[in-house]
């Protein structure tokens, strides 16, 4: 990150124009403390990401959505480091939708793929450094001294020979008259004071006192509240609507059919819900009326009998399987999963003839803005989208078809008033956009020493990417990258290898679910390698280790986790230990889980040791909390999570039948971070993939029962233990 980097002056001017041109007016200030604060008149805004006021206020404009992963802290820290300010004084503001705020690689404003720190580091560091150089030059100009005699420190510029000081606020006006530097010098790792420190999250106070504004908390004058009667089966269409009873419900204002179903617009949410209950709709249920999970599994099994599109291949896997000393076959199945963020989906839209305002917790601002422009017929610049805090995202708020924004815009347009659309929890659990279910057929051949000669993995899974704007880059030769990631690129050294793929029929809406394809491929790969180790009579940690000679970072975290967990040391009676390692989103994570199981077959996870190699990192405390979070999220799926279908209908509806783990189920999570100078990796998602296999492998170590289907329900555990 150190060294000089040329900065395009045009880029500066362009972003400056964005700020000056009024697009930023009315941008919501998401942190409670900053609510209602207007930028002071004299403001130094050297680029799109930073504003320094004559009142010494320092505002960092963040182009990523804060959904718990810590971007409103980690990204300002990068600016603070180069700007020479205490990160605690920074105010954070959500970026408006503008090209300056596009994802550095993806050409649109989006938060996802655990990319925020990785892709923003360079330009935010430059933004901070350029501002520091300009402030220093402004001070030198004021004092009529050489800039080299001045140093920026803690929000001030100091003239070293005389000890004179000027605050950034005092310098803001003078600095704003200077040209941005042609190149900036970034700090080297040894000069860094903020990066690498466990700085407290900037959004904590507002989230503790209840003032942090989320999408659902937005209220604008004249706003009505709506729910949508959504189809009972995916793809169903309302054939006949009887609205008279619903219209009679006190507080109900309008019944309005839209793309998503039938909108019930009312004065309050309770009235809207009563209105929806009173609505009678006859549905044309469409082709998925008979959808059934057991039958889908049979279909997938049938598809898996034939070769699929080859995602990766080396050697001759079929021949090697035939001549192997020992052959092992297994089928792994994983269900659909709902994201179930704690804040149900919602969106406020206010469509007027001359413009449209949207307040929403979204991960995909540009697409949502464009969708609103299309519905309203307004030019894009007349759509103002304010990103609110997201009460959890996990991918659910990154929807390429913008459905939860479109329905609010359609209803507001239809009724001519601001409308807030609220999803109930049942709407959320029934509502689709799940992690796809998958059917995985594995085979391995071992040599006489028990080491793998051949490994084949056939995946049957719906495609997430098909039909999205990402199709061009991520769908090749009939293979959806997100369906085979983590499987086709397994690090284990096996001379004969093949991973192939069948795209399962579309229908159920599917989406990226925190860690995407890795959420299932890690379970399959890390369970199956464990099976091979046990079949060969080897220690599962050392067996993996022997196959990772060419992957030192994978091996490194495996060693670190094993060492910190006390691998091989005796455990208390009734406890088992399992290990798993997986690379995803540019980071390497190994986890060792300690589990016990009771007479009912309920698994209890006591302790999880995480070893993380995410290269150079910004905030170790955020890494630790994201590991805790990844473990919790992955454990909910491993132990409880499944969306299933019967008669075309989702069989789960709320947290009683789609449980997520509770406090008493939360293990102790210990995080150990490898320190190196490698390229930064992601941290929001990579903690999820290893936990399910680590737990399943621990269960095997403890009981001899190998579970190849998630979730690891007590019924399945009892059955497997009875057999095993």
């Amino acid at each position, binding site marked *: 990150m150190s060294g000089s980097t040329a900065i395009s002056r045009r880029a500066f001017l362009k972003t400056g124009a964005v700020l000056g041109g009024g697009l930023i007016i009315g941008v919501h200030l998401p942190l409670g403390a900053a609510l209602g604060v207007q930028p002071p008149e004299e403001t130094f805004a050297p680029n799109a990401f930073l504003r320094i006021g004559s009142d010494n206020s320092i505002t960092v404009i963040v182009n990523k959505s804060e*959904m*718990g*992963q*810590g971007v409103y802290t980690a990204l300002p820290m990068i600016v603070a480091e180069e700007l020479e300010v205490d990160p605690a004084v920074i105010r954070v503001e959500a970026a408006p939708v503008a090209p300056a705020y596009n994802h550095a690689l993806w050409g649109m404003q989006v938060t996802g793929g655990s990319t925020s720190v990785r892709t923003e580091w360079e330009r935010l560091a430059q933004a901070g450094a350029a501002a520091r150089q300009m402030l220093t030059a402004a001070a030198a100009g004021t004092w009529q001294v050489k800039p080299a005699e001045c140093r920026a420190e803690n929000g001030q510029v100091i003239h070293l020979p005389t000890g004179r000081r000027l605050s950034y606020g005092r310098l803001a006006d003078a600095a704003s008259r200077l040209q941005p530097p042609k190149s900036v010098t970034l700090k080297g790792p040894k000069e860094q004071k903020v990066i690498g420190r466990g700085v*407290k*999250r900037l*959004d*904590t106070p*507002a*989230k*503790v*006192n*209840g*003032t*942090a*504004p*989320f999408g*659902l*908390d937005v*209220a604008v004058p004249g706003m009505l*509240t709506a729910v949508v009667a959504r189809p009972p089966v995916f793809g169903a269409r309302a054939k006949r609507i009887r609205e008279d009873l619903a219209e009679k419900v*006190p507080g109900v204002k309008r019944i309005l059919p839209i793309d998503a179903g039938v909108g019930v617009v009312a004065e*309050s*949410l*309770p009235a809207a819900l009563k209105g929806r209950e009173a609505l009678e709709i006859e549905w044309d249920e469409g082709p998925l009326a008979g959808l059934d999970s057991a039958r889908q599994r049979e279909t997938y099994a049938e598809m898996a009998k034939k070769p699929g599109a080859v995602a990766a291949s080396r050697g001759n896997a079929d021949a090697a399987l035939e001549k192997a000393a020992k052959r092992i076959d297994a089928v792994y199945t994983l269900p659909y999963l709902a994201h*179930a*963020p*704690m*804040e*149900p989906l919602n969106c406020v839209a206010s469509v007027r003839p001359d413009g449209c305002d949207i307040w929403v917790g979204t991960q995909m601002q540009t697409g949502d803005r464009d969708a609103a422009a299309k519905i309203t017929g307004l030019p894009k610049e007349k759509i103002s989208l304010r990103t609110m*805090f*997201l*009460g*959890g*995202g*996990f991918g659910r708020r990154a929807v390429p078809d913008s459905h939860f924004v479109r329905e609010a815009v359609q209803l507001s347009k239809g009724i001519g008033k601001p409308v807030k659309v*609220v999803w*109930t*929890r*049942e709407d959320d659990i029934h509502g689709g956009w799940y992690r796809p279910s998958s059917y995985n057929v594995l085979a391995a051949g071992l040599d006489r020493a028990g080491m793998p000669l051949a490994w084949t993995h056939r995946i049957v899974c719906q495609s997430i990417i098909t039909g999205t704007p990402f199709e061009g880059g991520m769908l090749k030769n009939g293979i959806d990258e997100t369906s085979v990631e983590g499987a086709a690129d397994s690090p284990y050294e096996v001379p004969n290898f093949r991973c192939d793929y069948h795209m399962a029929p579309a229908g159920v809406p599917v989406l990226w679910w925190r860690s995407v394809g890795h959420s299932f491929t890690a379970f399959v790969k890390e369970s199956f390698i464990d099976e091979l180790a046990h079949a060969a009579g080897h220690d599962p940690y050392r067996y993996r280790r022997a196959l990772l000679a060419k992957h030192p970072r994978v091996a490194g975290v495996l060693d670190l986790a094993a060492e910190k967990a006390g691998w091989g040391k005796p455990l208390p009676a009734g406890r088992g230990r399992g290990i798993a390692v997986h690379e995803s989103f540019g980071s390497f994570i190994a986890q060792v889980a300690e589990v016990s199981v009771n007479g009912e077959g309920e698994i209890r996870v006591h302790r999880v040791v995480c070893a993380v190699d995410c290269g150079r990192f910004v905030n170790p*405390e955020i890494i630790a*909390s994201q590991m*805790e*979070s*990844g*473990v*919790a*999220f992955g454990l*909910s799926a491993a132990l409880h999570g499944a969306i299933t279908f019967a008669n075309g209908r989702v069989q789960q509806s*709320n*947290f*009683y039948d789609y449980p*997520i*783990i*509770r*406090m*008493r189920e*939360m293990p*102790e*999570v210990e995080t150990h971070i490898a320190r190196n100078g490698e390229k930064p990796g992601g941290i929001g998602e990579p903690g999820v993939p290893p936990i399910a296999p680590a737990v399943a492998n621990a269960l095997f170590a403890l009981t001899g029962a190998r579970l190849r289907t998630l979730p690891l329900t007590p019924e399945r555990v009892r059955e497997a233990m009875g057999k095993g």
Partner: protein
Amino acid sequence: MISFTVNGKRQQVNVPPDTPLLWVIREQIGLTGTKFGCGKSLCGACTVHLDGRAIRSCVTPVSAVAGKSITTIEGIPEDHPVKQAWIAEDVPQCGWCQPGQIMAATALLAENPKPDDAAIDDAMSGILCRCGTYRRIRKAIHRAAGMKGKGGTP
């Protein structure tokens, strides 16, 4: 008209008596710190105090609180040991469930000033957190319990 107090302030609302207290607090009174998560008393995001006791406002009809006293997250003083401990442990991630967690924790500590892990798990396992902040919550409750002993105001 149904009247009750919220955070010490008298409120009168004109809504159907079966309206859930949660939506009266959020939509009529305009206090949005109390959150909606499930609507069925399954997640605890809507937890408030009714005469000092933790209740789920999403399933409490407003008629049931007539003449009574409600406290929401906005009514817990900023210097309350629980809020201070939450900040010290940097508990929140997405933050949506945290008001409910804090309301459950303040009610727990009012009843049991020195809860052990098991007592904390019992009192808090009704409040879901999708981000997995549970262990930090537990630490924060222990910290707040310690602070109270040193002159904090519960």
